[in-house]
């Protein structure tokens, strides 16, 4: 029996290398758990048929000496990440039977490493949501309490790691879709710097915000997965090269800033109080020798408003490709344009329609000055405030979410309360900064998370301080 609960990427690597077990045996251990738990959790929409073949390939890499740390590691991928020859539906009826015709850059890199891709995980349709309740194929249940949501949109990925249905997972984060479910399920979730991983083969939502993120039970696993999939790619012109390693100065004690709004707990909605207490996290950091200070980010609380203008605008544009002509669902109308109306009317879910219409509204003549261009100007102001803040502090700390995982059905039908889930996570997407959610504390038996945000391309700082904070070495 392999103890999956305490398994890490490094431990699995050593065990396969020393012959304690094979990649095939490890894959089978995960397939057994999936068989036992997935029916209830609905973390996976599909477990691939070629898992054992992939694992055999990994064992071969160990034999011929070409294995790296990710070889043979069982990983799950969100249903919006393309894997050639395998279905990818973005949890939508409109792509229910779509088979990917090429590999996403992230999957290409996983394959080069010989990672074992177990299957595709459930999500909110086209990554639009914060609870996985917007999936066209049923909700994913939280492994810690199955009456509660996993968060979202990468809820299936978070549940797969938390429930030992995968060792690590890839999700995507546009406004908090990796960090919020990581926090809800008690695992580590990274949203890397915008552009650090190619978006080629990631089904687009908000193209100036989207990034592929990583889930793991610890920071080191997340770091290894991030290092495997990062890098510049000619097929994504916004992708960037990894930074050259810093020279010196790494030993000096870091300064961590807490923005005023999160300690006072006043939300951007104006007056609604969140019960968020950072005092324990603050004193733990101080005990580790870090300096913690309050910082001022005057426009921070307006991030969510800017986000709910910019993101739907980009959604309305990106979603126009689903027309029932080139691929995916097709419904017959009276004429060609009728086909579009019927296909999109039947194929897309309510939240997706809501965001397309909202995006169309904020971009229409007469409103774009008032909404879209104002939101872009505000986004630039928030970026500038972060840039200034990072002259004073090395990292910024906030809670990941306003509270723990809520009950399934609790927020359905109230879009604004669902959107407010992202109040602490959205700023890092607005600014493009890397951010990580670390499990810390609990409320009524459900995990909570702390978020650390770093300057662009300083994932190393998130890993370094995060490991000390969690006592992981």
């Amino acid at each position: 029996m392999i103890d999956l609960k305490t398994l890490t990427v490094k431990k699995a690597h050593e065990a396969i290398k020393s012959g304690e077990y094979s990649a095939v045996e490890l894959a089978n251990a995960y397939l057994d758990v999936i068989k036992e738990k997935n029916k209830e959790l609905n973390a996976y929409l599909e477990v691939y048929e070629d898992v054992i073949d992939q694992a055999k390939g990994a064992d071969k890499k160990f034999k011929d000496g070409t294995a790296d740390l990710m070889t043979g590691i069982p990983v799950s991928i969100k249903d919006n990440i393309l894997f050639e020859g395998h279905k990818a539906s973005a949890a939508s009826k409109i792509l229910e039977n779509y088979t990917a015709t090429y590999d996403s850059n992230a999957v290409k890199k996983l394959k080069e490493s010989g990672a074992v891709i177990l299957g595709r995980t459930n999500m909110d349709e086209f990554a639009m949501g914060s609870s996985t309740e917007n999936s066209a194929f049923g909700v994913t249940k939280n492994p810690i309490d199955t009456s509660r949501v996993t968060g979202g949109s990468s809820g299936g990925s978070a549940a797969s790691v938390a429930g030992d249905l995968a060792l690590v997972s890839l999700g995507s984060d546009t406004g908090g879709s990796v960090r919020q479910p990581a926090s809800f399920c008690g695992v580590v979730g990274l949203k890397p710097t915008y552009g650090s991983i190619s978006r080629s083969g990631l089904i687009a939502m908000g193209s100036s915000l989207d990034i592929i993120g990583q889930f793991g039970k610890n920071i080191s696993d997340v770091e290894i997965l991030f290092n495997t999939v990062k890098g510049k790619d000619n097929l994504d012109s916004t992708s960037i090269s990894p930074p050259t390693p810093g020279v010196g100065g790494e030993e000096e004690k870091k300064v961590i800033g807490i923005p005023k709004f999160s300690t006072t707990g006043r939300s951007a909605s104006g007056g609604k109080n969140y019960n968020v207490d950072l005092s324990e996290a603050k004193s733990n950091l101080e005990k580790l020798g870090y300096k913690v200070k309050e910082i001022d980010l005057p426009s921070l609380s307006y991030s969510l408003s800017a986000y709910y203008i910019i993101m739907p605008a980009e959604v309305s544009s990106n979603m126009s490709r689903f027309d029932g002509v080139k691929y995916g669902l097709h419904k017959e109308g009276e004429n060609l344009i009728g086909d579009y109306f019927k296909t999109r009317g039947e194929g897309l879910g309510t939240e997706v329609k809501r965001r397309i219409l909202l995006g169309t509204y904020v971009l229409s003549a007469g409103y774009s000055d008032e909404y879209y261009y104002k939101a872009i100007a505000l986004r630039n102001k928030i970026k500038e405030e972060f840039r200034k803040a990072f002259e004073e502090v090395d990292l910024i700390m906030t809670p990941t979410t306003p509270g723990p995982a809520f009950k399934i059905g609790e927020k359905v039908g109230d879009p604004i309360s669902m959107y407010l889930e992202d109040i602490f996570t959205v700023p890092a997407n607005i600014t493009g900064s890397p951010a990580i959610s670390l499990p810390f504390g609990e409320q009524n038996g459900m995990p909570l998370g702390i978020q650390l945000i770093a300057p662009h391309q300083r994932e190393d700082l998130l890993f370094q301080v995060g490991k000390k904070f969690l006592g992981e070495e």
Partner: protein
Amino acid sequence: MIEKKDIEHLAKLSRIELNDKSVEGLAKDIESILGYVDQIKEVSADLAVRPPSAGENRNVLREDENPHESGIYTEKILKESPDREGDFIKVKNIL
């Protein structure tokens, strides 16, 4: 104020068929979302409004060369289309 006819207009622009019930729900939702995002006006009054400038973005150009061998992806891509005729995607009459 977002009315039913506004939603119908947006749905037309977005090529989405909606039933009456969902039009009503969407009008209410979008009204409340706009009410929320309107708070940017508290801070954005002083911000210059202009179409997004070039900023840090830059053109990424490459030579138009080294095409892949003709036809190697054709079958894979056509297999995903709802309707085809030979090596073409088939649609209804446009004109």
